[in-house]
């Protein structure tokens, strides 16, 4: 009688354990899916917001062939996605959708940088003024200069802490010049190089 009882109890415990673990796995997967969907949704929203802030200046007169309107739309979307992905350091995999080559390496190393001095930056993109300076004859490489990228940056962290007697977070508007190279890989445009400064 006791043996039967013990056996049933053991089975019941195993069943309960199995149900609990299964439920946990289901909930965890659902939560993961929800988190990814939220990340993607936020990324697309940021991309749309940056796209709206982009203003194209007339191309450099030396650019030949002319950039096709459809190509410019693609460039705009990928450019905005690249900034959104860089800003949102949580979605590292997403970087590969919009960055390649040296720019990807640069962004990866920035994401993985664990130095104390590294600050956390939140950008609000206000204005991106872009100009095409080079378009290769086979239409696979574009060089872009950005004489003005106006952002509102909120910087937190780094070595500055409240204990130093300084605010740990600062917000300021800054305008920077940048240069970019975008390249077509298997029919998809990606930002190949990003460099601050130097645009005339």
């Amino acid at each position, binding site marked *: 009688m006791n043996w039967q009882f013990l056996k049933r109890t053991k089975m019941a415990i195993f069943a309960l354990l199995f149900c609990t673990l299964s439920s946990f796995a289901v909930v965890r997967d659902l939560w993961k899916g929800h988190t990814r969907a939220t990340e993607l949704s936020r990324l697309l929203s940021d991309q749309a917001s940056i796209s709206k802030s982009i203003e194209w200046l007339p191309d450099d007169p030396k650019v030949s062939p002319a950039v096709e309107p459809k190509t410019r739309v693609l460039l705009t979307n990928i450019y905005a996605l690249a900034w959104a992905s*860089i800003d949102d350091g949580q979605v590292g995999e997403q970087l590969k959708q919009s960055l390649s*080559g*040296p720019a990807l*390496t*640069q*962004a990866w190393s*920035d994401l993985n*940088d664990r*130095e104390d*001095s*590294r*600050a956390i*930056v939140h950008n609000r993109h206000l204005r991106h003024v872009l100009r095409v*300076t*080079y378009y*290769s*004859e*086979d239409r*696979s*490489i574009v*060089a872009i*200069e950005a004489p003005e990228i106006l952002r509102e*940056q*909120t*910087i937190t*962290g*780094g*070595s*500055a*802490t*409240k204990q*130093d*007697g*300084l*605010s*740990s*977070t*600062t*917000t*300021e*508007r*800054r305008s*920077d*010049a*940048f*240069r*970019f*190279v975008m*390249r077509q890989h298997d029919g998809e445009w990606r930002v*190949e*190089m*990003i*460099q*601050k*400064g*130097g645009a005339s």
Partner: protein
Amino acid sequence: MMKLIPHASLKSAHTDHTNPEGKAGWTRLLRRWTAGLMLLTTLSAYLLVGAGPKTTAILAVDRLPKTLTLSIDATNIADSERRRVVVYVRAEDVKANGPVRLDIQSSLQVSRIVGTLRGGSESFLIPPTLLDVGSEVSFSASTEAERGSAHFAVPAGEPSSGVMPIVGPRHMIADGQHGTTVSVLSVDRANNALSENTPVTLFVRRPDGTETTIPGSVKGLLAGIHVPSGTRAGFTSIRVAIGKSTGPVIQVREVAGPPVPFALENEAVSQVANGRSLVEIRTARLADKFGNIVEDGTLVDLTGIGPDGAFKLTASTIDGRAVLRLRSPIRFGVIEAVARVQGVKSTLLHIAVGNDVAEFEVVTKRIGSVVNVTVGPVTSGLGGFVPDGTPAVFTWSDGQQRRVEIRDGFASTDLLVTTGDRFTVQVLGRIREGTTL
């Protein structure tokens, strides 16, 4: 000491709304809840908004009357390993003491380090890892009341070995007018784009063996250099050199342009209209104005008109020539054909097609109301029977037609006809007339 509240009194205070005392208690409770909610709301608002300014300093130059002056002392700039950069921060007030932060912004990275103003100044030795960026670095120094900024250009290092040129298009027409672009996206050891105006040299070897160098320079992160085509078809080899660094040799194919107007040829001495043999038409060897033979596989479109009507054929070239085979018409006459290659027209070709069927006999026999018509022997130009299956088409004056295949040189048919009907028999290009009389 704990005081126990009777369960009944709790119940009356919460649920007995008709009792004046109970109603007053309910109102009091409501007031307390409202007060609590207001307190919570105020606290939240304070935490969200009120506490914000204490941790967030909105820095704007117009609100900051005092400024910090930044000066940069850099040595061994070109040498990434021995590079030493010190940023000096000086306040307007020479007696100022207190913390100062320095933000260092490169292309994608922002770092923040903190120092202390002593006697109105502080110096920061910038860690070399923060300067291994090959671009402009912005320094922003700030205290709670003052701010200043400066920029510093960090030159890129020597290009890494293995300069990879991106060449496109990989085919160009060897006419001296077309060309290709070599885009050089070279980086230094730290993955930075090369500095502006870095000289880039292309070494080009043409299919005829001549070698040229084309100079270029880095503009806007890359060097885009146009390589014009030559006038000899073949492979052009391109190598890029930046200083001592070089990379693989890339080959670009130079191909012939559109051919010069060409002739069509038909070598057969005589063509016969037998509906089964092939009329072979070939192009002359197609070459452009520089004598380059067109690529194998170049499409040749042949259009024309013959005794049987219009026709269109397509063929591709092998070793500069295309051979087009047209089925011989069944009627004799003249075939006119013209070919087009890349918009270039050939000369007009005329081919005379002779009759392949000799005169034949038509024998009519009337058996009652049935008429039997037999044709034959039907022979070809050489005197032998036309091939079995060659059609003999009988057409009566009322428009009726009957098609009979010839076997062993003869074909016959029976028909109910009225006396005196006329008819024709056609075998390929030969037509005979007859009557059922």
